């Protein structure tokens, strides 16, 4: 009898639960999420808000090694509604026909590093021509490498490329079986351990950083705009918390539950002339859009995806803009926001 009328009360329309997937690590036997997701959890605000509407909150911890595919498949299977992950896999899913979109940014992005083995006299990527270079193919930072190579007029074929997963790459570097590894911030840790020397990083070219953000299933956002807004607001609140200089130590402690100790994170986060809060800006700004334009073009041209993704269908800044308004945080982060939907 209840199902006769199309349910008009909002409560009846609401899903039983919201599921958010995010890259996570295991810390002392329990999953700890990467970046802001863990802050959202710790703040407890989102869970409380959802509970008020009778909606449960599920977190899906995803290990780094299989993060992209697992999240993409989860989106396709409608098992997850939101995910915090990287530009490249999200774009691949979108191109593959999974309707998702970026609804917040997670700051300026992640650094990539080029580390060479001990005893190798190389000062720049050009010096590595003809040498062996390890990278894990298909992972987001491959784009960064491509841009670096492009800028120097080099090609992948100028090197002896080894497709190694990060663990193996570090071992190979330490053992001197490869000359260089192109990877994320763990490079700093490897350098500390004496496995090699970092000769280049995106700190010199911040625009090439890999970008991450919060992505949402479009179907979900259109059916449940209020819930989506709540989730986005939670992330904005988390970003706001993390942006406070007095929370810096606390944030780094949270982050250090991942792969890198605080000492490494300090250096990775050491900002090149910017402010601490730039790291967490949720704003979808011109830089973010431009980055995705780039990624979209590169992946299509290199036949990594079959269909080119139109960025305007892929990025939806309305929630984040509204959230910043609602929370009275306009002007807290300095980038110029994109106004209105990307068209």
């Amino acid at each position, binding site marked *: 009898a209840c199902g006769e009328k199309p349910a008009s009360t909002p409560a009846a329309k609401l899903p039983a639960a919201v599921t958010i997937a995010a890259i*996570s*690590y*295991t810390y*002392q*036997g*329990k*999953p700890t999420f990467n970046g802001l997701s863990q802050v959202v959890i710790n703040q407890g605000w989102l869970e409380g808000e959802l509970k008020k509407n009778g909606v449960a909150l599920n977190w*899906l*911890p*995803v*290990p*780094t*090694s*299989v993060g992209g*595919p*697992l999240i993409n*498949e*989860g989106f*396709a*299977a409608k*098992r997850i509604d939101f995910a915090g992950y990287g530009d490249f896999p999200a774009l691949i899913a979108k191109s593959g026909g999974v309707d998702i979109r970026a609804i917040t940014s997670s700051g300026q992005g992640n650094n990539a590093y080029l580390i060479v083995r001990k005893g190798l006299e190389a000062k720049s990527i050009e010096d590595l021509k003809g040498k062996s270079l390890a990278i894990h193919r298909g992972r987001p930072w491959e784009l960064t490498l491509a841009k670096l190579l492009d800028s120097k007029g080099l090609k992948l074929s100028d090197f002896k490329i080894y497709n190694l997963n*990060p*663990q193996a790459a*570090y*071992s190979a570097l*330490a*053992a*001197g079986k490869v000359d260089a590894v192109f990877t994320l911030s*763990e490079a700093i*840790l*490897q350098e500390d*351990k*004496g*496995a090699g020397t970092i000769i280049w990083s995106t700190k010199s070219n911040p625009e090439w950083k890999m970008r991450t953000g919060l992505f949402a299933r479009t179907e979900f956002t259109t059916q449940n705009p209020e819930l989506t807004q709540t989730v986005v607001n939670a992330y904005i609140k988390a970003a706001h918390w993390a942006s406070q200089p007095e929370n810096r130590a606390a944030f780094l402690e949270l982050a250090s539950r991942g*792969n*890198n*100790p605080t000492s490494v994170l300090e250096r990775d986060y050491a900002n090149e002339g910017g402010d601490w809060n730039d790291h967490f800006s949720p704003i979808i700004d011109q830089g973010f859009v431009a980055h995705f334009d780039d990624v979209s073009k590169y992946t299509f041209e290199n036949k990594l995806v079959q269909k080119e993704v139109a960025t305007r269908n892929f990025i939806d800044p309305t929630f984040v803009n509204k959230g910043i308004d609602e929370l009275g945080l306009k002007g807290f982060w300095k980038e110029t926001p994109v106004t209105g939907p990307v068209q």
Partner: protein
Amino acid sequence: MTLKTLNLNAFKPVWLLGLIPPVLFLLWWDHEAAKGGANALAFVSLAQVSQALADMLASGELGLSYGSSLGRALSGLLIGGGIGTLVGIAMGLSKPVEWAASPIYNSFRQVPILGWLPLIGLWFGSGDLSKLIIVALSAFYPTVLYTFEGLKQVEARLLDVGQIYRLNGWQTFWRIQWPAALPSIFTGLFQALAFTWISTIGVELLFSSGAGLGALMQQAQLQARLDIVLVCILFVGLTGFAINFLIKRLSQHVLSWRSIRA
């Protein structure tokens, strides 16, 4: 007097011989670790390992991860092994089932888990259930194979006796085919044991992260914390050995009727 010495001899700890290879290995290991340089990154000193062990025990991290992995491995073994035995029995006893199931079984068996991941994720999510399914699958394959082979090997001359005494299907199975196949079934169980352990560790890397030795090891590797990796290996190896030992005991008891070389 003589009897006493004899008894002592009987209790001579020959099993201590089994400690020789691991001890030699550890000595070599420590030696390599002491060399420093690139070696230091692949080998960590035993002192560091014991320190890590103490730390991990103290923080409760090891207990949590270990408990979680052990639980997964054992339930996978139980479920996969149980279903595997049933399927193996069905295939071994019924020709039509064999014809129908064997091609599917034999080709599915050869498909790397990697290929199934999208589907398993789709159907069962990427949580503990999916992990359990993969672990159970790894126990399923060997048990099916060995149960089936065990039943196929039952001698016709013994089945003749069952016919003479008009045993019905169930009686024939329970009194003749099952005991005759048991040695083989146990071999399958021993195989399954190793596979469940290995896939327990592996599967923790494929689906959602959480407590488990596999996750712990993976992360430790990225952190270049080989001492943690080694502590995990130690626990995986020793536990595997212990479970193996228990099943061996059980099999020796159950198969005591065999006249085999001591």
